């Protein structure tokens, strides 16, 4: 490519460079990927584009998506929370057993309890990471085991059953708020969507949100700029715990029957959603919407590929692993290349 063509290309890029950031391009590419997957599956699989498929995916994405939003906040600050699966399990069981013991407890109290318990566990993670200066992966690998141990001891081999819960809990997940044709809008999905909207706004337009990006993309510069990095990390972990607690309540509402192994593996699913959703594991870039789209894409590909290729459920994990790798690789290679173009554009602008 001659120097001249590069110059021209760069010039055309500078026009829309100012309007679109690489992260937004990432979200756009996710939407395109999802649309392509829907088209291919709809064309190849009979009855794939039905309300049933949509409802099934929406319900299962609601819980992982909620956890993934919290995970995004933590990953943005260059940390990771591997204890979220245990937090989801603990809050689901704890709130479930409280509701079983006291059927008169209302919905607001139950939700508040779930969020508070989750928030407390997140706060502990955050204190150890931010003020104890223990790397997040060590801290949350430890609390993953500790919170699960608390749950197993608390549960003592008993199970929360659907019959013991007040009827509104189970109704909550089955209710249809609004139906367009056969497409049902369920409360679980609405709660998660509302949370995404809130955090998309918080991350993009509030001081707190922008500071999270700042300490993630360059911790040293953020410190020199006087940002309270420790407090911000603490808040990110606490919010992550609160959202995991809320997800625990959704888990209880969806399944009704809770054992001591509830929520196991959600930590990996949430990290997968975040990574596929374009949140950089080195911190500093990514959005809540991206994480939700990532969770949606994973679930869609899982369901679609299994039915399309006629392969068994056992292929799921192998495909998920491959998908995560592809996402990370494309993130590093393509975005790295794009950022270079962006930077070159900026230099050309600067030179004029």
């Amino acid at each position, binding site marked *: 490519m001659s120097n001249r063509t590069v110059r021209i290309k760069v010039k055309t890029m500078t026009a829309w460079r100012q309007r679109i950031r690489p992260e937004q391009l990432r979200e756009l590419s996710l939407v395109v990927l999802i649309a392509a997957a829907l088209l291919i599956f709809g064309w190849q699989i009979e009855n794939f584009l039905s309300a049933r498929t949509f409802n099934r995916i929406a319900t299962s994405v609601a819980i992982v998506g909620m956890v993934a939003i919290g995970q995004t906040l933590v990953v943005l600050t260059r940390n*990771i929370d591997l204890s979220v699966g245990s937090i989801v399990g603990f809050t689901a069981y704890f709130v479930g057993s409280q509701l079983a013991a006291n059927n008169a407890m209302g919905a607001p109290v139950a939700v508040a309890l779930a969020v508070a318990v989750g928030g407390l566990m997140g706060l502990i993670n955050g204190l*150890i990471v931010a003020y*104890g*200066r*223990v*790397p997040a*992966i*060590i*801290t949350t*690998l*430890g*609390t*993953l*085991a*500790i919170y*699960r*141990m*608390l749950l*197993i*001891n608390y549960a003592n081999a008993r199970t929360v059953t659907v019959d013991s819960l007040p009827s509104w809990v189970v109704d909550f997940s089955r209710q249809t708020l609004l139906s367009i044709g056969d497409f049902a809008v369920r409360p679980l999905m609405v709660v998660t969507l509302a949370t995404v909207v809130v955090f998309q706004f918080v991350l993009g337009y509030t001081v707190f949100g922008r500071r999270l990006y700042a300490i993630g993309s360059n911790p040293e510069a953020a410190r020199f700029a006087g940002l309270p990095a420790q407090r911000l990390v603490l808040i990110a972990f606490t919010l992550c715990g609160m959202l995991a607690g809320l997800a625990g309540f959704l888990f209880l509402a969806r399944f009704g029957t809770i054992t001591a192994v509830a929520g196991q593996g959600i930590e*990996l699913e949430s*990290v*997968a959603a975040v*990574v596929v959703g374009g949140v950089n*594991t*080195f911190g500093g870039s990514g959005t809540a919407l991206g994480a939700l789209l990532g969770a949606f894409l994973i679930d869609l590909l899982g369901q679609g590929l299994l039915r399309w290729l006629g392969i*068994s459920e*056992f*292929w*799921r*994990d*192998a*495909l*998920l*692993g*491959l998908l*995560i*790798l592809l996402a*990370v*690789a494309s993130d*590093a*290679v393509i975005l790295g290349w794009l950022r270079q173009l962006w930077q070159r554009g900026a230099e050309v602008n600067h030179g004029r």
Partner: protein
Amino acid sequence: MGANLRRLVSWEGFLLGILVLVIIVNTSRAPAYLSLTNQINLFQLSIEKIIVALVMTFVIINGEIDLSVASVMGLAACMIAVLFESGVPLPLAILAALIAGVCCGAFNGLWVAYVGLPSLAVTLAGMIGYRGVARILIEDRSIGGFPAWFTALGQQPLLGPFPLSLILFAVLFALAIIILQFSGIGRIIYVIGNNAAVARYSGIDTPRLKLGVFVASGLIAAMAGVLLAARLGAVRGNTAEGFELDIITMVLLGGVSIFGGVGNLVGVGLAILVILNLRNGMSLLNVTGNVQTGVIGVLLILSVLLPNLVQMARERLQRRTTQRKEVQVETETSASS
């Protein structure tokens, strides 16, 4: 502080103190605790994990992490089981499992070393993906019925009272100490972990060495998977699931920094002894497996938190004394003027 005193309060000294304490408590509760058979048994129960912990030490000192080891162990175990079931001779199946381990390690290593992806993300994908391949192979079955010589190799003593896996561990431990602490390669591994940029500028082929470390990690994990299959006598899709927590805990408790470049195998060896004896002691007290894992989790966090707190307290103390000195100097100068 004298050099001897400093050595005593070092991390290894701390681990040694805990180890002695645990052994004293355990021996007072069960007199047969220190007998050779119990000690061999105690090693035997987690031998596969401690073998992998040796190579994990290399990975972490090199500044990376390998979350996929437990899945590689499971994959290797499933491979020999499935191949054996379909009529392949067992030695050939073992060879295939080891090759699979090398492939997994090389796959991780290529992405990390040559593409430059973070090892945390790559091996997380590997952890899910390799386990997925194992599930495709074995589905929801449980395969056993291995020939007697194979299970005997995993369960019976081979040389005197020592079983094969323990002998292998001893040989590997010696080998690992020679390579990591006394050879040029070992020094280079530390340099890369400390500062990869400096290593690259001084002409070290960083990517090749990183690839080598990941391949070794895959190979050793596969070998541990074979040993696990031999000891258990039956293999399922979730064999070795969750082992990475214990393995990484052993290494980090041994004083190896998660950021690379710091730590040694003596510390890891002591940490292994502490964890094995602690778990065995808790079993003697009828503490269940989950609580044991929880206690190990607490230990993992404390192993990093406590030194940090001590250092922070020391820094604060130092700051206060320097401040006081400054005040003194100021008052002196103002008095003289």
